[in-house]
């Protein structure tokens, strides 16, 4: 089998097996798996087979906004991963990105052409700083990035809540005042054409992020040296590359992607800063998205849309009596099957061997 086809085929098989397993679990609960697939169809198009409800763009909008942040956190995980780092910090980077966006949105008064880019830049910068800390600690003192990023996730959560509640103030102990129009990705035009969904201009920075990711990794000398460090630190050092600098930069860029996700949520999906009772799981979804997407921009787009669709379908399934945990099971098993891809590869090879043998047998 060709390497390229394998790279596409294996995740697809994993997805298929994930759904298969999910279907079996649904059968065990005494429901029909078809209900699940119907819910998924409805989640991406609004078409409801049971009630005959027709196409509704509102569902597309909602499905896309579920996908956007996890594509960005997926890019964040993948970027660090390409440099051989295992960053679990997207969650916290997202929160500080969101906080920075909130700060700029509330404190700066400027026309939209200046204000909105400023908001996005602030989220990128905050995420980069938050990602740069574990990068620096790793490069300087060889502190493991997993530990630091996990810890920083908690720091970010409490920093966010403290700042929102004590500095920006709120009436209800949950959210800040509404942002001015000039700071928002949220847009009534997009809401209008999607029948009142929460779709916003966030998809433009997401697409740009995907392009930037792919460009840096595949086309630039910087990406070349990042990949070299990721695959073989010693060889990169031998070749004269600045391994430590690459580690810090890679973590910062990864953090910037996640920080951007914070702005997309806060100024796109919502129009106010929020105090959070706990992490919302975008960071961990991002890890799954990156794994399924094989750390490639195209794969991450696909996996992000897939998981976004599942997220969007979850409440619909629940209304049909399918437990909401099913979606979690499917997501988890897709990731598991992706992690098992060597095993799947082996099985595929065995099958093709058997086929070859059968052919031989016929010839004889």
């Amino acid at each position: 089998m060709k390497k390229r086809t394998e790279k596409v085929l294996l995740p697809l098989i994993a997805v298929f097996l994930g759904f298969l397993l999910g279907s079996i679990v649904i059968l065990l609960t005494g429901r029909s798996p078809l209900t699940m697939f119907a819910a998924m169809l409805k989640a991406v198009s609004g078409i409801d087979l049971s009630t005959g409800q027709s196409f509704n763009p509102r569902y597309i909008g909602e499905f896309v906004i579920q996908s956007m942040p996890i594509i960005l956190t997926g890019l964040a995980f993948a970027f660090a991963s390409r440099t051989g780092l295992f960053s679990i910090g997207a969650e916290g980077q997202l929160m500080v990105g969101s906080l920075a966006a909130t700060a700029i949105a509330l404190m700066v008064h400027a026309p939209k052409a200046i204000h909105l880019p400023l908001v996005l830049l602030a989220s990128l910068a905050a995420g980069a700083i938050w990602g740069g800390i574990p990068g620096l600690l790793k490069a300087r003192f060889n502190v493991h990035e997993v530990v630091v990023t996990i810890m920083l996730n908690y720091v970010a959560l409490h920093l966010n809540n403290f700042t929102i509640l004590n500095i920006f103030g709120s009436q209800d102990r949950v959210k800040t005042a509404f942002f001015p129009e000039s700071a928002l990705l949220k847009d009534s035009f997009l809401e209008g054409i999607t029948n009142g969904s929460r779709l916003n201009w966030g998809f433009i920075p997401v697409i740009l992020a995907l392009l930037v990711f792919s460009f840096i990794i595949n086309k630039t000398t910087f990406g070349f040296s990042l990949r070299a460090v990721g695959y073989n630190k010693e060889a990169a050092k031998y070749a004269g590359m600045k391994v430590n600098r690459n580690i810090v930069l890679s973590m910062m860029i990864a953090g910037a992607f996640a920080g951007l996700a914070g702005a997309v949520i806060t100024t796109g999906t919502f129009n106010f800063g929020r105090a959070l009772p706990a992490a919302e799981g975008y960071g961990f979804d991002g890890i799954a998205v990156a794994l399924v997407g094989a750390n490639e921009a195209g794969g991450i787009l696909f996996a992000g849309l897939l998981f976004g669709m599942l997220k969007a379908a979850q409440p619909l399934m629940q209304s049909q009596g399918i437990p909401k945990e099913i979606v979690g099971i499917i997501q988890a098993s897709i990731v598991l099957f992706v992690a098992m891809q060597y095993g799947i590869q082996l099985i595929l090879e065995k099958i093709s061997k058997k086929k070859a043998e059968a052919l031989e047998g016929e010839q004889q």
Partner: protein
Amino acid sequence: MRFASALPDPNAIGTGAKTSRCAILTQLPYSRGREVAFIIEMLNITKDFPGIRANDDITLQVEEGSIHALLGENGAGKSTLMSILFGLYRPDHGKIRIRGKDVQVSDPNVATRLGIGMVHQHFKLVHNFTVTENIILGMEPRKGPLIDIRSAEAKVEAISKLYGLAVDPRAKIEDISVGMQQRVEILKMLYRDAEMLIFDEPTAVLTPQEIHELMQIMRRLVAEGKTILLITHKLKEIKEVADICTILRRGKLIGTMKVADASEERMAEMMVGREVNFHVSKKRGAPGDVRLKVENLNVKNQKGLLGVKNLSLEVRAGEVLGICGIDGNGQTELVQAITGLTKAESGKIFLRDKDISRLSIKERTSLGLGHIPEDRQKHGLVLDFTLSENFIIHDYYEKPYAHWGVLNKGAIRQNAQRLIGEFDVRSGQGGETPARSMSGGNQQKAIVAREIDRSPEVFVIAQPTRGLDVGAIEYIHTRIIAERDKGKAVLLVSLELDEIMDISDRIAVIFNGEIVGLVEANATDENELGLMMSGALRKTPNARPDSSTRGIA
């Protein structure tokens, strides 16, 4: 008495064997007219890979109780053939017979059951397990629910004694030498009752002493009735230990012959397909100014002790200074300190007149320091990069490979094509071949190609031909001499004494982190060097009695 089994008498066939260079026995069975029990027969094996026919109608017949060598260059198809025998690949055509019975070796477990064991070139051992734990891994003897480590240890010890392996069953792998680790691999096979042992380039990682001991072990194994298939490209070893030799070239069977009848030159010629010069012809060097100067260098090793002690040396333009010594006497630390991979504790390193001891690797490289690293997979290559990416690993940010920080794929591809052609690097898919999928020899060729192509002024070369076949060695040696003749300064570090003696102009002997000898290459011999390498003799010009290593340059 070398062999306990019934070996064909060397004088029995080919009456003219002594006068003719050898009797090639391409017609099979080669032992026509005599009763010989073949334990392994691989008949008309053909195996295709995308773009390459790795084995083309190869027949290999191995007599029971013999040491049968499989000789061929890198990429000749030896490993493929053995992988087929071991069940890792299935042949496209041909069949395998073990003890005269047709068998289907569909996976390595089948091979193990048939009594075939393989000692891999890269050992497959768990480093923080003991010898016994490694050996029983996968087939642990039990006493109730517990592993019966005692009886396993006893069995390992017994086998070890029987074959003279002298392995301590309770030692941890990480604490024992490479040679001992290899014996653990052998024990693993014997523990599983292997009758046929495949050795894949077993001497590539060993010191001369360990090689000698391995040869004795192999003889002992055969004396106890085992059969050995030895994959190698070292003619000396074949001459020393093997009975029969089968030669492959570019996937084809060239011939099978009795080792006793064949000269090394003849075997080399058959393997490479042309005459091979074992000794590089070189003119007398014309050394110029000092290009590399090391002054009172101290370098710590991995254990935190001084691996290099107060070492000084000089390499001049247009000369090769060879550093010889037994592995682990400070060669690695010296090379890494000069090239910048390790920081020196103290001392100075001059490139021309510039002290480079505090500079980064990149700065040293751009000042004209070249380096062929000792460990090709750790330092030399990014295995998950393609060949063409590996070729530009130093210069990726420079024109023509990049413009404004964006890679120029066309220029990178062209560079790869040029180097592959010029240096005969063999790979399945050209520049797009992942380095990981290439044979060890071709990986090394790729590194040598890349480094020589940069033509650095001072060239630090460590183990340039480890694991390479004679044809490639000849080529690389010629290229090193050519660099010298261009006026480059070459510091050659090698564990192969032949290599050092062949291409060096001067030889420095390193022992325990110090230079204990400095001699002209044409005024010394193996004996003298050997004595110095073991620390029994010191010989440096202008040395005071009982001298330190100072002033040897």
